[in-house]
């Protein structure tokens, strides 16, 4: 038996607020954090988003003040979430020498880069200023987290669109299980920017109303932003240092559709392969799964393909298996989505709370037999849950999480 991988700390910055506490409270209350888009002016079909409005703490550690001042929004999100997770796990500089950092991210400091680019093109700046572009490389988020928190093991940054940080969690868990790193921090982070907002809008992929995953009238996604972080180590490593597991990462898998640059495979071939392989990796049968934290983006195609995949994996049991989409509360956090939803799933397992699918007025008749946890969350004792993320270009990741290691 390979060693069990457990989660000993979690952290989050989402539109529901700073910290896991604010996230858990918002999930329990069924609060929708999707509101007016205020970060930049935009005139298009949609004008809403799940923005992070919290005035964040600044756990900058030894970082120089000038560096902290110039952090891009997503780098700051990442740092705040990572510091919370490390604090909860008791992952400090003593363990930090060999602690790995795995990041999932898609656009990083694009909002700041856009502004620097605009100023230079408009002649408002007579030259490009490096100080305005420090957050441009995607690797910066990992550098910020590593240097501020003293984590000096291997550092990897993954960018597979909306599955980026699900892949980061999977790869961190994989490295821990194989024993190549003793402890790892997985972080997902992304910030809203003009490029993604206008791009998704131009593809007519944004719902002008807060997104309605699995609804008959769903019209697309609502973009969000934020960060989430998880500290992973083997159960034995946690026990030896007296760290309390909050959940376990039981299995994972990543596949590629090799089908289309934006559309999912019509039968969800890659998504099906990822979910099947993740359950096999976890040595968990479909019957043992108590909750599905869906990708549930709210686009017409995704939700239909995803339900099809779930039917094939869970068969007739699907009608009795709660399925919900956290994106109805938090928006689609893109590169951060996988980690945010992994943390949501850990909370569901730990707190015994099924997060709801909001904005579900009329479940699509094609799946009105499903338990989509509409309107409000509810209590349930959960042992095993799956969380899947599907990225543009057909990059699929499924994670299997458990309340306890098996």
């Amino acid at each position, binding site marked *: 038996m390979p060693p069990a991988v457990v989660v000993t700390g979690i952290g989050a910055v989402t539109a529901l607020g700073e910290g896991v506490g604010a996230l858990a409270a918002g999930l329990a209350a069924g609060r929708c954090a999707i509101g007016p888009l205020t970060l930049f002016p935009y005139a298009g079909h949609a004008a809403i988003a799940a923005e992070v409005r919290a005035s964040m703490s600044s756990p900058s550690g030894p970082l120089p003040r000038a560096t902290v001042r110039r952090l891009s929004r997503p780098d700051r999100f990442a740092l705040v979430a990572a510091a919370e997770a490390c604090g909860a796990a008791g992952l400090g500089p003593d363990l930090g020498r060999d602690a790995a950092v795995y990041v999932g991210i898609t656009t990083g400091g694009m909002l700041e880069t856009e502004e620097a680019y605009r100023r230079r093109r408009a002649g408002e700046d007579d030259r490009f200023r490096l100080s305005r572009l420090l957050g441009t490389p995607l*690797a910066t988020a990992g550098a910020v987290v*590593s240097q501020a928190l003293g984590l000096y093991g291997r550092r990897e940054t993954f960018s*597979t669109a909306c599955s980026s940080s699900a892949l980061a969690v999977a790869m961190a868990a994989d490295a821990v299980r194989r024993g190549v790193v003793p402890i790892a921090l997985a972080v997902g982070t992304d910030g809203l920017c003009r490029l993604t907002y206008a791009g998704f809008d131009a593809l007519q992929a944004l719902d002008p109303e807060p997104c309605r995953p699995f609804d008959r009238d769903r019209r697309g996604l609502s973009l969000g932003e934020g960060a989430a972080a998880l500290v992973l180590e083997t159960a034995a490593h946690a026990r030896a240092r007296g760290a309390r597991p909050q959940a376990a990462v039981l299995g994972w898998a990543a596949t*590629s559709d090799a089908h289309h640059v934006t559309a999912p495979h019509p039968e969800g071939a890659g998504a099906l392969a990822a979910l099947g392989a993740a359950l096999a990796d976890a040595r968990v049968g479909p019957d043992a799964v108590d909750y599905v934290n869906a990708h549930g983006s709210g686009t017409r195609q995704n939700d239909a393909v995803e339900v099809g995949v779930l039917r094939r994996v869970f068969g007739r049991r699907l009608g009795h298996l709660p399925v919900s989409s956290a994106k109805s509360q938090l928006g689609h956090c893109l590169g951060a989505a996988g980690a945010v939803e992994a943390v949501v799933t850990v909370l569901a397992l730990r707190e015994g709370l099924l997060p709801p699918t909001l904005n579900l007025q009329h479940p699509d008749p094609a799946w009105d037999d499903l338990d989509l946890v509409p309107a409000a969350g509810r209590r349930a004792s959960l042992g095993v849950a799956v969380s899947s993320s599907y990225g543009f270009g057909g990059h699929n990741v499924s994670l299997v999480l458990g309340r306890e290691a098996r």
Partner: protein
Amino acid sequence: MSVDVAVTGLGVLSAFGAGVDRFWRALVAGESGLGPLRRFAAPPGAAPVAEVPAVEARDHVRSPLGRRIDRVSLLTLAACRLALQDASLDAASLPRARTGLAVGSEFGNLDETAAFLDRLFARGTANPLLFPNLVMNAPLSYTTIELGLTGPSAMLSAGEVSGEAAIAWGAELVAEEGADVCLAGGADELGEALHQIFHEARLLSPTPRPLHSGADGFATGEGAAVLVLEPLARARARGARVYALLLPVAGFALPAPVHGWPRDAATLATRLAPLVSDADLVVAAASGDPQLDVLEAAALAAALGTRTALVTAPRAATGRFGAAGALAAATAALAVAHDLVPPTPGHVPPARHGLAVVAGRARAADVRVAVVDGLARGGACRPLRFEAP
């Protein structure tokens, strides 16, 4: 359990053109790939750059979807096709679900991102045809679609070690038997805005002199390189040529400014010492950036101690860019295969710290172990170690 990983194919698009033979011949001849900017108008006084000559989409794209391919994705796809050909593998007969793909890029699609933003700022509208190409993982999407690969795939971005990071990921995947074949490498393009940023920040030198005390800047560039990785046993069974073995080496990080190079050469030396203790060749990260040169030379000298290892710095010939480490990895594998170390164009002896930098002409040497040291700003280090089979 892990298996030995063999490098059985190389695909390179560099300033020297397409193909590994052209790349290696030019490197060994000590040629510089630097020249005047051609793809866009150069600002007055612009330093030479390492540009990849035009690559034709129709030579590499087969699917209708691929007609809209962007340049970084095309460089990636072309490098993959060339690497497969070099490995005597046919894309159609690859085990689809057991073939992995790892691509590293620092910035991805710069040209179309700039065009997208130009229109957005000018007219307030986005171009829906461009947007799918702007996601960082577009090279991964196009390549999996074109080659029909459904196995594990990853896009990695790790600053100056984006190429090394992807190759290391692929090597681990194959070593742990997560795939029977993995295409691993990286690609970056030189965008106009990025060039302008480097130029205006005065980071570029007309005459890069890596590892020399007079180094005053680097040459930027672009390119792609992909390695075919497969288990040694599989390579042997199909009678494939094996350039080198790629050994598992852990990445690590050092205290460093978030946006700068690590400053403590002694700590870096301690981490590099076990890697280079029996190395015959170090393929250095040096590009003529004085801060990197100071760090790298001191760390290598201390890590090597009284030993001598040959040092070469291919970024002097083919430019410094995020995925340049993939070209450095190809250089290391080729040096092991040919027992030949290419010189570092522009390097003038004496080298900093008395390093044995190969300059002028290529040096024949028994290269059994070649290490790519893999240094990046922000403190993440991603070394690679190649050994003779």
